């Protein structure tokens, strides 16, 4: 019973992986790709690893450690990627109508090639 429940939870998680990859392919610019790519993989890996933890209850501690690690690190890398994309916003052709970060920085752009 444990095994089949865990396998279906893992299947739901990998469905989120597939959806995030499809969003990565179909979204128009880097900010939208980031939106599809980072949130959906966070939820997908939580479900995938939780499903493995349900399948094998003696591995549950390590899975919880991995889930906490991913939940802590994935927003950090997403934030760094968003700042990098914002530094190249003219070149990548993103439309940013209310741009609070540019007003804060004084509107500077990164100089080297992207």
């Amino acid at each position, binding site marked *: 019973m444990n*095994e*089949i429940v*865990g*396998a*279906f939870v*893992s*299947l739901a*998680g*990998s*469905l989120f*992986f*597939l959806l*995030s*990859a*499809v969003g*990565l*392919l179909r979204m128009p610019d*880097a900010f939208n*790709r*980031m939106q599809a*790519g*980072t949130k959906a*993989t*966070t939820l*997908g*890996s939580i479900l*995938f*690893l939780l*499903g*493995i933890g349900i*399948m*094998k209850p003696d*591995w549950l501690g*390590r*899975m919880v*450690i*991995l889930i906490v*690690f*991913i939940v802590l*690190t*994935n927003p*950090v*890398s*997403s934030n*760094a*990627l968003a*700042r*990098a*994309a914002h*530094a*190249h916003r003219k*070149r*990548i052709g993103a439309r940013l109508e209310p741009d609070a970060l540019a007003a804060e920085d004084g509107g500077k752009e*990164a*100089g*080297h090639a*992207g």
Partner: protein
Amino acid sequence: MAEIVFAAAAGLAVLGLLLSAVRFARGPWAIDRTVALDVMTIIATSLIVAFAVFSGRRIYVDVGMVYGLVGFAGVVAIARYLEGGL
């Protein structure tokens, strides 16, 4: 039954890895490639843990943990470089 469903889950994750590899190859700017690298790192971490389930050896869970740590550090380093702060 549980083995078949879990194998299907791993297969879907591999398909997601391949689709984000397409974005990694095609992405017009370095930012898009870095986003694709981030997604591929997370999916690969989960797939290494799934490989630990398939092979039945617990040591691969630790391998996945270390791979996630190194991949996170790599993505943040590349993003900081592209921002111009490194």
